């Protein structure tokens, strides 16, 4: 039956990509629970698409695109939340207080904390490139930017992280 075939494909996609998508979300959103929500939302959307009988050429790129869109939506929602609340939540760092937090956390946490300090767009490009392993071309397609812009963002992201880390180490 048709449905079974599509289901099989869906399940296969989930098994293959769920970890990667989750990881991406974690490094973008820094809230594990929220990351799980978004990852699940990604696959829900995937099913919506597949159940309409549409074919997908590149599953991986498609999933990343959905995830990215959801994360962007999340950012937009977040902007409405007051900054105080953001500060109180674990893992949310803004401004100079982040430096102290960075010191206290373990390496893993430190890396994630550093990422927090990056502007959204930089973080997006960096995570996609070095954590998800997407090519610059793919990232450009996903985000509807030129490859040049993506390369620049990645570079600046790394620089900024460098400065932040060195800044934190000095203290």
């Amino acid at each position: 039956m048709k449905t079974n075939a599509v289901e099989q494909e869906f399940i296969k996609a989930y098994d293959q990509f769920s970890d990667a998508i989750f990881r991406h979300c974690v490094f973008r959103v820094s809230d594990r629970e929220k990351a799980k929500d978004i990852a699940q939302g990604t696959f829900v959307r995937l099913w919506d698409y597949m159940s309409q009988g549409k074919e997908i050429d590149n599953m991986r790129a498609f999933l990343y695109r959905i995830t990215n869109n959801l994360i962007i939506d999340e950012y937009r929602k977040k902007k409405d939340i007051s900054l105080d609340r953001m500060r109180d939540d674990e893992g949310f760092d803004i401004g100079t207080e982040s430096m102290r937090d960075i010191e206290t956390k373990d390496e893993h946490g430190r890396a994630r904390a550093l990422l927090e300090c990056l502007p959204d767009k930089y973080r997006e490009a960096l995570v996609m490139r070095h954590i998800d392993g997407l090519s610059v071309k793919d990232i450009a397609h996903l985000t509807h930017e030129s490859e040049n812009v993506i390369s620049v963002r990645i570079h600046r992201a790394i620089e900024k992280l460098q400065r932040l880390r060195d800044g934190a180490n000095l203290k």
Partner: protein
Amino acid sequence: MENIIKQLKKAAKETKLSTVEKAAMKTQLLHYVKTHPVRSDAWGIPTTSNGTGPVNASAFSARAVLSPFSINNFRNKKTLSAFVIGGLLLGSTVSFAAENTVPGDILYPIKIHVNESVLSAIAVTPQAKADWSVTQTERRLQEVEKLASTPSATPEVRAAAEANFNASADQVQQHISNFEKNNDSSDAMATAGRLTDMLRKHEGDFSKKGFAKEETEHNSVSVTPTSAVPVATPEVSATPVSTVQQTQSDEGHRTGVTDGGSVLKSIHTVRGKAEQVQADLRNKYQGESTSTVSNVDSGVAHTNQGISPEVVPGHSLDRHDRGQEEIRTTTGAAQNRVKND
């Protein structure tokens, strides 16, 4: 700098869904899948509750099977450019192969409708168009010649080719008269000159090829065009009767080459007409009152003085090409020839 990256990557490796979390999410998702089944109108084919196997399965598998023409193949830049290049190459190969065809060949329509359409579209100016129609006439002539030398060609095909050739030559005349209407003397004469040159050359080549021995006879195959040639041709007028008879009998003997002979005749006829036109044009635009055209009576022809030398350039007759000296018709020379005869 890479340090940071390494750190990130390390952190990334450690981050993943726990088995429990993963399973839990899967369950939830599958629940969602069940509650939102595949839409039956997705493929435009109604599903039945018991799912009749063959029909539906084949319908889906038909989609699952990638056909080389599916739209997905065109989403990839690489395959798209491969298709485009393949298409271009195929098209050019066919066009190229069509160039040598004659009426009756399979690819002949491509030669006419595709290749020649493109070539004529490139000709923008009236001069270019006229030149192109001369070239076209040459092409038709080449087809005629080619058919004459293929023994397997049927008479209908040969006749068709000849008809094409004549039609094309008429087209050229049309262009010339258009130029005349617009008082464009230089283009008219240039086109007429091109046409006659081309025809002469072909006549020469063709005769040489097929009728090596019979040069002298074919010298005088011209019956009608004598009058068209402004140059004094006392030799021709002196010899026509006997040689024509000779030619006819000779042609009768060589059955295999009769078509060649008729081809030559038709080339000659067209050439004669073209030369007539050219002479007319010369008269018109050189502004000479004296007519140098009809000179069956050779002596009369060139008593007019002040004939501009342009009257006779290249009018060294092909008849005389074969081994005989070129005749430059100046008034003096004409007189001389008359005297010589």
